[in-house]
C-alpha cells in the first residue's frame, strides 16, 4: 500500500509522538486512538512456508530451525529453486534392447541459472530427495548445546531448591513423622533420588576451544594468480550458510527456505486486536483489519503555490472519507507544546460502557455478527487492567502557519458504486465556497492558506500542521453505532522554499 500513499508527505501523529503516514498506522476502535507500530504488541500468529504455503506448528518449526524441510533456495541468489525433470534413459537389463525412461530431477534457479548440476549434486529420482550437506561441526555444536541445556536445567533446579528452603519454615508431614521422602520412596520400591534424567547422566563437558598459535601460511597462488571474481562467493552467499561459509563458487549447496510468519497486532492500551490475519497461508486477507486507512480521512496534497518566506500561498488538499458513514471535518490550531490530555481517563469511560455492552452481548450469542472478532468476547471476562500510555511530545518543528478555517465541511460516505456512476453528484451540500473548492462522491478538495515564516533560508523544507477533528462512527456494536469526535494531528511537508520572486 505504500506506493498508493507515497511519497510520504502527509503524516499523522500517533499518541506516542511519532509521525507516520496513514498506511503505517492502526486505529483501535476500542480506545478510539491512532496507534503506530510501536504502540501495538506484535505476536506471531502462524508460521508458514512462503513457497509451498504450508502451515507449520511452532514446535516443529523450532526443531527444524525455522526452515521448510521441502523447499530449497538458490545458494547463489537466494531465490527459490525449482525441480526440473531430466529424463535419462537407462536400460534395466543389458540384454534387452528395450530402454526404460527413468525420470530424474535436478534443481534449477530460474533467476540466475544456478543448478544442482553446477556443483555436482547427482540427479535425484524424487523431487524432495536432495541431500543436505553434512555439517562438519555438527557433533561439536550438539555437545555445546547439550551442555548449555544442562546449565539452564541446573539453574532452574537451584531456584526451586531455594524456594523449597524458604518453605521449610513450615512443618511438613515428613518432618513430623520423621520419614524422609527418600526413605518413603525406597519403601515403596522406587529409586531413591528423583532428579531429572538430563541432570542425572550429565552430558560430558565439551572440550574447551583451543586457540592455535601457529596458523598455516596462506596458499601461494593467492599472491600470484589473478582473482577470478566468478569463482569467489559474495558475502551474502557465505552468510546464507553460516556453518560452512563457502569461499569458492563450487562449494555452494542448496539451502532450506526460511519460514515466514503471520503476525497479529494488539493494542497495548486495551489488549484488543487491531490486526489479525487469516490462518490460511494462501490468504492475504485479515480477520481484523483495523488499519487507519479504513477509518480516518485520508489527506493528500493536490497543489501548493510556490512557497516564499512571509508570503501566503494557497494550498489545496484532498480529503477522502474511507468509512460507510458521513463525517464532518473541522480544523483546529495545532498545539505542540502541550501534550494531549492523558488518555487513560477517557478510555476508562469508554471501556466501562464497552464492558456492559459486552456482557449484554455475550448473553446473546445468536446476535454475534460475523464482523465481531471472537477474541473480543472471550477476552471480556478476564481482561487485564489497562496500561496507561503516557502521551509524549511531538518533535517536529513547524516553520509555517496555516490559517485555520472557522467553517467545517461534510464528507459523504464511501460508495463503491459511485466510481462507475457518471450521473454527477446528487448530494446537495451547502459548502463554504471559500473552504471547499470542489467535491465528488466521498472526496472534497479543500483550500487552505499557508504562510512560511519570515527569514527562512532558501530551499528550507516547509512543514505545516493542523489538528483535524472528524466525526467518527464506531460500529463495533451493530445495535447502536456510537458517534464521537476524533482528533488527530496532521503534518504536511509542502516542499522547499523558493526565492522571493
Amino acid at each position, binding site marked *: 500500500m505504500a506506493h498508493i500513499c507515497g511519497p510520504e508527505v502527509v503524516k499523522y501523529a500517533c499518541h506516542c509522538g511519532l509521525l507516520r503516514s496513514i498506511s503505517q498506522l492502526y486505529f483501535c476502535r476500542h480506545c478510539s486512538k491512532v496507534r503506530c507500530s510501536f504502540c501495538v504488541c506484535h505476536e506471531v500468529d502462524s508460521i508458514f512456508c512462503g513457497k509451498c504455503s504450508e502451515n507449520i506448528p511452532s514446535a516443529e518449526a523450532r526443531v527444524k530451525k525455522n526452515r521448510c524441510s521441502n523447499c530449497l533456495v538458490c545458494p*547463489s*541468489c537466494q531465490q527459490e529453486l525449482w525441480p526440473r525433470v531430466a529424463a535419462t534413459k537407462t536400460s534395466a537389463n543389458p540384454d534387452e534392447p528395450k530402454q526404460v525412461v527413468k525420470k530424474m530431477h535436478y534443481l534449477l534457479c530460474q*533467476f*540466475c*541459472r*544456478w*543448478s544442482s*548440476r*553446477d556443483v555436482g549434486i547427482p540427479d535425484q529420482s524424487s523431487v524432495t530427495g536432495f541431500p543436505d550437506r553434512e555439517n562438519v561441526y555438527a557433533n561439536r555444536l550438539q555437545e555445546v548445546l547439550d551442555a548449555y541445556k544442562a546449565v539452564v536445567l541446573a539453574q532452574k533446579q537451584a531456584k526451586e531448591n531455594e524456594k523449597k528452603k524458604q518453605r521449610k519454615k513450615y512443618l511438613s508431614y515428613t518432618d513430623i513423622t520423621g520419614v524422609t521422602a527418600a526413605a518413603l520412596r525406597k519403601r515403596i520400591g522406587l529409586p531413591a533420588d528423583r532428579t531429572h534424567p538430563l541432570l542425572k547422566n550429565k552430558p560430558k563437558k565439551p572440550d574447551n576451544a583451543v586457540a592455535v598459535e601457529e596458523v598455516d601460511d596462506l596458499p601461494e597462488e593467492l599472491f600470484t594468480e589473478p582473482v577470478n*571474481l*566468478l569463482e569467489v562467493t*559474495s558475502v551474502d552467499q557465505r552468510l546464507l550458510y553460516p556453518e560452512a561459509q563457502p569461499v569458492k*563458487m563450487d562449494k555452494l549447496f542448496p539451502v532450506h527456505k526460511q519460514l515466514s510468519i503471520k503476525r497479529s497486532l494488539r493494542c497495548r492500551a486495551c489488549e484488543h486486536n487491531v490486526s489479525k490475519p487469516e490462518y490460511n497461508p494462501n490468504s492475504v486477507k485479515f480477520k481484523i483489519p483495523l488499519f487507519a486507512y479504513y477509518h480516518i480521512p485520508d489527506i493528500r496534497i493536490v497543489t501548493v503555490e510556490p512557497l516564499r518566506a512571509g508570503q501566503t500561498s494557497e494550498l489545496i488538499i484532498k480529503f477522502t472519507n474511507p468509512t460507510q458513514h458521513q463525517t464532518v471535518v473541522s480544523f483546529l490550531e495545532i498545539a505542540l507544546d502541550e501534550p494531549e490530555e492523558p488518555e487513560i481517563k477517557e478510555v476508562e469511560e469508554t471501556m466501562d460502557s464497552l464492558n456492559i455492552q459486552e456482557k449484554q452481548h455475550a448473553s446473546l450469542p445468536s446476535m454475534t455478527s460475523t464482523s465481531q472478532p471472537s477474541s473480543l468476547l472471550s477476552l471480556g471476562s478476564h481482561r487485564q487492567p489497562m496500561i496507561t500510555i503516557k502521551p509524549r511530545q511531538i518533535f517536529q518543528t513547524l516553520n509555517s502557519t496555516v490559517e485555520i478555517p472557522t467553517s467545517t465541511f461534510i464528507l459523504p460516505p464511501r460508495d463503491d458504486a459511485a466510481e462507475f456512476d457518471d450521473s454527477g453528484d446528487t448530494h446537495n451540500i451547502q459548502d463554504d465556497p471559500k473552504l471547499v473548492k470542489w467535491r465528488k462522491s466521498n472526496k472534497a478538495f479543500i483550500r487552505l492558506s499557508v504562510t512560511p515564516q519570515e527569514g527562512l533560508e532558501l530551499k528550507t523544507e516547509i512543514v505545516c500542521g493542523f489538528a483535524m477533528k472528524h466525526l467518527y462512527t464506531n460500529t463495533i456494536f451493530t445495535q447502536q453505532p456510537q458517534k464521537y469526535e476524533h482528533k488527530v494531528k496532521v503534518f504536511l511537508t509542502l516542499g522547499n522554499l523558493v526565492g522571493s520572486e
Partner: protein
Amino acid sequence: MSRNNIKILPGALVCDESKLRGDITIGAGTIIHPCVNINAEAGPIIIGDSCLIEEQVSITHRLPFDQQEKENTPVMIIGSHNVFEVDCTVEAAKIGNSNVFEAKCYVGPRVTVSNGCTIGAGCRLTEEQILKENITVFGADCQMREAIDVPAKQTLQMDTLMKMLPNYHHIKKPNKKTDAFIKQI
C-alpha cells in the same frame, strides 16, 4: 541510410506492425513480433536464424560518440537462437548465439556479447566489456556468474508462435531467396 532495405529470408516471420528502419537482414526462422523497433541508423543490422524478438523490444545500431567519425560503416551482427524478451533494449554491436536478453534489460553499445549469455530482467550493462561464454547477469546490482551450459532453446514456444502469429497479424513477406543471400555474403 534514408532508404529502408529490409531483407527477409524464407522461413522468417516478421509482423507488419514492427518498425524496421535502415538496412536490415533477417535470418530464416526468426520471429519478430508486432511493435518491435529495429533501427539500423549507424549501419546495417544482420539478424541470424531462429531468433525470437518479442514485443516492445528495441534493437538499435548506434555508435558510441567517439567512434562516429570512422569511415567504414560497421555492421551489427546478431547470431542465431537469441531470445529478446519483452521491452528489452539492445545496442550491442556484436552478439553471438543462444543468448537471452530478459525483460526490460538494457545492453549498451560498448558491450560485446559472446555465446550462451543471459542478461537478467531489468539489468543494465552500460560499460565497455566483453561477456564471456555462458555468463549470467542477474539481480539489482548486476551480479555475474558462469553457468554450466547454454540457456534452453525456446523451440516449443517458437513453433507455437509460427502457427499462431499469422492468424492474427499481417506478415511481411520474405523477399530474398536463400541462395541469393549466400551469394551476397
